């Protein structure tokens, strides 16, 4: 993308005022999405994102400048701006880059950015019409085929010169069902860090459409969820968003390093129920949140965050790692060159346990089964989180009964992970986009069916 000798000149300019670390990050991304609405291809987004950023550290200070001008002159100007912002010093380090090849543990067979619209439309239409034709109650379907070809280059004053190419594809279907004048929605959004082969090898477009429609129709007939404190069984796959929100964000160095996380200073302590082992693994081949190297050039890793309830590690990027005196865990990520990277999740999940699904339901006299979850959010400082239940059922006397809608779960992260007291074995991952200070990035969440012994359910 940018020749090694140019990178060296840019980094030399960048460290000219005394930075002790410099990084050049360059990006060329092709992002393409086809959108369907009213049974027709309605719009296509087709964007090239290209630019670069220069980041400098001096002790615990960090400076970033970014630009869309990736000519050598443009990059040098950007480096100068960063160097000037750092202050008045003289160069203290020398720059010699050595190319490093990390390889690709996420093989891609059909690069979507080179495939014509018609090939993607076959998959999108399969999914779209499966939803549309599922039931007469379906009033509208929206569908998107998204593919991203994200090429990055990282050169640092430590000598690293590395590139990565991150390709991902996703189908999103949202269905709207109507019942007695009330409308409800259902959605299904599977994706992989793969090319078009994802939709012949691992994801069924048709099942994607059916699932979205099934959920919409089910919920259109559901009554409102009652409000109160009760036990909740949370379904596998996207149910893992509970760990992502209630705990994951609070284990990111971006809040831990500043003491603004309820889990700061708790390494080695029992913070969760002994049934809980939680992992962040950026190395799962072709998983949605996987990477070869993170956005600071650190190879992806499998990090056990919590083992049998004991906090083992945080998710750490280089800059916040300095403040914590700990090395990077390969979790530094950014949406694009325009965002300052920070510690983020990759594929984060609660590991399989030994309880059976039957045990979990039969343990509940009255509670909620949150079969499909929506998104959520958290304030890491207080641990207060919330997330939405897209498809819920009441559980009475150990039996899953009628569907209920409009539920949300709220609580405090440190409480809820102590209250996860049953964990089954049907671990599965699901895909989402996670938004935080360094932008919107693809992450997986996951878990087997779990039970939270007590949590506040918002309903009416």
């Amino acid at each position, binding site marked *: 993308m940018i020749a090694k000798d140019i990178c060296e000149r840019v980094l030399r300019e960048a460290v000219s005022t005394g930075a002790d670390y410099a990084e050049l990050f360059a990006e060329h991304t092709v992002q393409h999405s086809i959108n369907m609405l009213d049974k027709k291809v309605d719009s296509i987004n087709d964007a090239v*994102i290209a630019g670069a950023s220069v980041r400098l550290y001096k002790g615990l200070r960090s400076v970033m400048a970014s*630009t869309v001008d*990736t000519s050598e002159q443009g990059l040098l100007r950007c480096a100068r701006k*960063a160097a000037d912002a750092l202050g008045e010093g003289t160069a203290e380090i020398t720059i010699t880059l050595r190319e490093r090849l990390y390889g690709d543990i996420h093989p891609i067979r059909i690069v979507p950015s080179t495939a014509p619209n018609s090939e993607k439309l076959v998959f999108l239409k399969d999914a779209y019409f499966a939803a549309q034709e599922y039931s007469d109650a379906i009033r*509208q379907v929206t569908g998107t085929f998204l593919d991203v070809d994200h090429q990055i280059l990282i050169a640092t004053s430590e000598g690293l010169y590395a590139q990565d190419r991150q390709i991902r594809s996703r189908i999103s279907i949202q269905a709207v069902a109507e019942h007695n004048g009330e*409308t409800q929605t259902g959605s299904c959004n599977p994706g992989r860090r793969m090319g078009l082969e994802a939709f012949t090898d691992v994801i069924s477009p048709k099942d994607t459409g059916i699932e979205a429609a099934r959920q919409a129709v089910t919920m259109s007939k559901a009554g409102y969820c009652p409000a109160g404190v009760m036990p909740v069984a949370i379904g596998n796959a996207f149910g893992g968003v509970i760990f992502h929100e209630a705990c994951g964000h609070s284990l990111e160095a971006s809040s831990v390093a500043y003491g603004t996380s309820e889990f700061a200073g708790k390494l080695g302590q029992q913070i969760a129920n002994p049934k809980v082992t939680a992992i962040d693994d950026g190395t799962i081949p072709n998983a949605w949140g996987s990477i070869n190297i993170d956005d600071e050039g650190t190879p992806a890793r499998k990090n056990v965050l919590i083992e049998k309830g004991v906090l083992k590690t945080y998710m750490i990027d280089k800059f916040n790692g300095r403040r914590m005196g700990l090395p990077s865990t390969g979790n530094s990520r950014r949406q694009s060159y325009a965002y300052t990277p920070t510690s983020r999740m990759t594929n984060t999940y609660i590991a399989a346990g030994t309880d059976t699904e039957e045990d979990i339901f039969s343990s509940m006299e009255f509670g909620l089964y949150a079969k499909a979850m929506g998104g959520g959010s958290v304030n890491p400082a207080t641990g207060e989180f919330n997330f939405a239940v897209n498809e819920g059922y009441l559980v009475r006397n150990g039996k899953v009964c009628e569907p209920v809608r409009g539920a*949300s779960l709220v*609580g405090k992260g440190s409480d809820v992970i102590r209250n996860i007291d049953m964990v089954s074995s049907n671990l599965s991952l699901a895909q989402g986009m996670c938004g935080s200070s360094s932008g919107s990035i693809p992450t997986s969440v996951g878990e087997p069916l779990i039970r939270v012994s007590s949590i506040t359910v918002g*309903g009416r």
Partner: protein
Amino acid sequence: MDYNSFKSAVAAAAKAQGIADYELYYESSEDCSISTFRHEINQFSSSLDGGVCFRCIVEGKMGYASTEELSESQAASLVSRAADNARTLESEDKVFLGQGGQTYESHPHTCPEMAPTDLIRKMALKGDELLYAADPMVADGSEAQVVSQKMSVAIMNSNGLDLSYESGAHLFIASSVLSNGTEMATDFSLAAGDLNTMDIGATVTKSVTKAKAKLGADVAPTGAYPVVFAPEAMGSLLSTFSGIFNAERVRRGLSRMGGKEGQVVASPIVTLVDDPFYKDSIMPLPFDAEGTPTYQKNVIENGVLNTLLYDLKAAAAMGKQTTGNAAKRNYSAPVGIMPFTMYLAPGDLTEEELLQKAGNGVYITSLGGLHAGANPISGDFSLQSSGFMIEDGVKTKAVKSFTVAGNFYTLLTQITALSNEVKMPGFPGKTAFASPAVLVEGLTIAGK
């Protein structure tokens, strides 16, 4: 190459490829931001962003392509990608490009120049100092951030439209973390305008006061009570549900406002305004994303749905005139429909009188997880909340970690009073939301 050379290259490429109807939309921005941690500058960032979006009509369809790379080869590729995308479309909607030669309201606004880095640094450190001085419970993690930004938009099309607009602002954001040794509470406050005249002390005080009030909060008891939404909370709800007034979404069955123009959709005391020239806006835009002149309108007037928000395509499909609400989320996004500053018109009660009227209930100051706990299609919401109890007409103890649930369509009819002061707590940008405090009857609170 610069934008003007790129513009010529695109015009030449369009001509060479036989494309007669097209538009080029350009957005660029310059940003400088400094934030603090424990009395020192922690992060500095400076960015120069920008990109162009080309769209063209081929065989009656509108194709889009965009790029951040302004080069000769991208100019040609942009045109051919957009044309190719147009040929893939199936929608039979009639599509339009804006007309040239229209007249625009001019609303002079202050557009400060980029602040010098030294001033940004100085104000950030001053803000940090004020934060720690504001209260002994202010803890590390509290942060002052100062941002200076400039942005520009330009639209040029084959109908002779050629418009440009520039705006800029300085922002000061005070984020406070308060700790009483056993628990932490956070909040923030924001000021926008010109750093040279900004009262950052007041912003700091507001931020710290809001966070401090949350310490020691209890969980609200479960039940149905009158709820008063503070401007922050009602602004969040409006932001989440403003799409129900989007004509395109109505037409697609994604809103229940279909066929409701001229009908009662809200309590008779409700008037909902959309104003591109709102007094606090830092971006009073005279034209929308299609180049249509913008103007102030009542979306709901005394409870009656006066108009939806339209762009050229939705207006034509529904036999209406555009309301000048065409908008792009960013330069590369397709043209959609968005409000400018949308706000509920004030009522006639002071906030004290509003609380008196509520009697015993809950005062909600902030809502969380709106992207997840609220469904803009069904109108259902169940949202994490924090605020205060209202007992015998006055605000009493702080409450948190509870949810408020209801349906936005119904909520509009459940509004029984509004306070007399409209506030805009969020970022006063191109799309923004403001509100007075609003009393709503009939919602459910889930807590302990």
